């Protein structure tokens, strides 16, 4: 994955570039809005990580300008202003995801990876049947089965599994699940998501030789056929 990080704080930019490279991605860095815009326009990036406050051209204007050029590269906005209306403004300007500072790198990584596969995910959004190993989910009939055996899910459990299968192989964090399955952006204090996951896991993995719903320590969960 090729990433462009547009961030004026050189410490955090250096840290991000290094961390992404360690994860096997190619990360470039631009220290101000105009340079970032020029580099992004040159194209070839899978995801842009854009800070909201930038010298010479602020993050939202940068995104707006790119979108006017019909550039659809996924953009994740980083912001110190983690507020409801800021998120709305950011997404309205054309951002695809929004992460308030301070954030954990694992959270950023998971979100960027999901964004980079957005085109693939868009293609899978067309699919009516998701498959991971022998787990099958039919979005039209709302039937779920593992190794041919039907599994009965509650509506919310169905949506949870649907999201996990749509992003199969990817790490998804708890906040991503809360955002995409429940449509809330706050940080729940207790382990509400964990309990939902463990219930879902009990239904799809219980008694199976190969568990599919895996916990990724310090990050979140992933639905995948093989252990990493």
């Amino acid at each position, binding site marked *: 994955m090729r990433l462009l990080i547009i961030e004026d704080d050189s410490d955090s930019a250096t840290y991000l570039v290094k961390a992404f490279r360690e994860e096997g991605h190619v990360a470039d860095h631009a220290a101000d809005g105009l340079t970032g815009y020029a580099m992004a326009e040159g194209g070839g990036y899978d995801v842009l990580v854009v800070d909201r406050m930038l010298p010479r051209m602020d993050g939202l204007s940068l995104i707006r300008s790119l979108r006017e050029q019909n550039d659809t590269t996924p953009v994740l906005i980083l912001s110190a202003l983690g*507020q409801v*209306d800021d998120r709305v403004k950011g997404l309205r300007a054309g951002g695809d995801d929004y992460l308030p500072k*301070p954030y*954990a790198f694992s959270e950023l990584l998971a979100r960027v990876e999901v964004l980079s596969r957005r085109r693939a995910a868009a293609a899978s959004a067309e699919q009516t049947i998701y498959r991971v190993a022998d787990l099958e989910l039919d979005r039209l009939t709302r039937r779920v089965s593992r190794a041919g055996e039907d599994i009965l899910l509650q509506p919310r459990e169905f949506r949870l599994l649907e999201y996990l299968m749509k992003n199969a192989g990817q790490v998804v964090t708890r906040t991503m699940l809360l955002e995409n399955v429940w*449509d*809330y952006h706050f*940080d729940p*204090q*207790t382990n509400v998501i964990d309990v939902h996951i463990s219930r879902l896991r009990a239904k799809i993995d219980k008694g199976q030789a190969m568990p599919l719903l895996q916990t990724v320590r*310090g990050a979140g969960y992933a639905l995948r056929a093989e252990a990493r």
Partner: protein
Amino acid sequence: MPVASDISAPSRLFRSTAFRLTLLYMGVFAIFATAALGYVAWNARRLIEDQIRQTIDAEITGLSEQFRQGGIRRLVLAIEQRARGPGASLYLVTSPFGERLAGNVEQVPVGLLDRAGESEIPYARSADEGQGARPALAIVRVYVLPAGFRVLVGRDASERDRLRVVVRRAGGWALAVVLLLGVIGGFVIARRVLKRVDAMSATTLSIMASDLKERLPVSGNGDELDRLAINLNTMLDRIALLLGGLRQVSDNIAHDLKTPLTRLRNRADEALRPSASEADMRRALEGVTEDADNLIRVFNALLMIARLEAGQARETMAPFDATATTASVAELYEAVAEEAGVHLTCQIEPGITAIGSRELIGQALSNMLDNALKYGRPPAEGPFEVTLSLRRTGQGVAFTVADRGPGIPPEQRARALERFGRLDASRSQPGFGLGLSLVNAIAHIHGGALELTDHAPGLAVMLTIPAQPAGIGHAG
């Protein structure tokens, strides 16, 4: 105290507002008094002139009667007789050719006798000839008799002029006295006011220097200085209260953040121990990350409360489906509740639309449920029950989370809403005591309220926000 000892310094007195106001008042008073006096003097002058004219008219009527009865001889006799009396009028009779026939006036301006009518002339009497260094003014009237004889009758107008002098002198003195009294009065009043103001500012200085315990003196006569002092005292009370709250909050922050920071440090130490294996180090670092995440969470909550209290995010308020929001939060927590052996009951009225932020209300409900699950365990044997309800109230929508736990005594309920305001009973439990203060801030930004009440037994937390007025939006 330098400020208080300076009271009598003249320059300060002159510069005081009271002094200036007194002077200004005196000035305005002097202008009005002068105008009034001038008006009175003008009227008196007119009155005197009218009297003079009336006298002249009467004399002329009398003299023409004499002429009608006895001709010019009788007129001359009458005039000579009248002219001799003390304080007499001025008289002059001339022939049709201008010869002087009788009278006590020596000279009249040339041509005066040619026209009938009234005029004002300087004159000299025949009697006081020689000493007339100062010519007097007289009002005279010329009357033409039938045969062409002319009669001039006039009266001295010095009385009128004397009045002017008297009035002017009296006015001048009065003005001087008024101004003098004004300056003295201003001085006295300014001194009095300055004394009190100086006392107030001295107290203010000592209040600033000390710990806001002192209060400004109130004289008790209810004047504007008293009102000012009372208001300033009220303000000081409020500042002291806020400062106390701030001190409390920072004490709590320091206390409550020290524990996780110490733990974080200890874990880092553990990882640095020479004997630590790679697995130990990894475990320690994971713990460090977790602790740091928790701290970040605390600061995020603090920031969010501060932003809400500053009134940000108010523009995101819009009608939203309160029923669906409550149901979704309930659904989010049902699993956790069940896992913890809590019986979560929901009583959600259908079709309620409220005005606000779905996101913030969702967060508030989540915090309320969180609290109930953490602290709502019944003290004695009994089922752990938590109720989440949504219902319409008079003007708004009430979200209530009630438990059967130990509850909060009435006197401690306000503290429970403070930042880090954890009750001692809950100190042993995990958490930072920010949950309810965040809910409180959310209530306030919605123009609503957060109420803690006795659930007998247990605690009921009720969040009220405005409802969508019926008839607008959906399903009123």
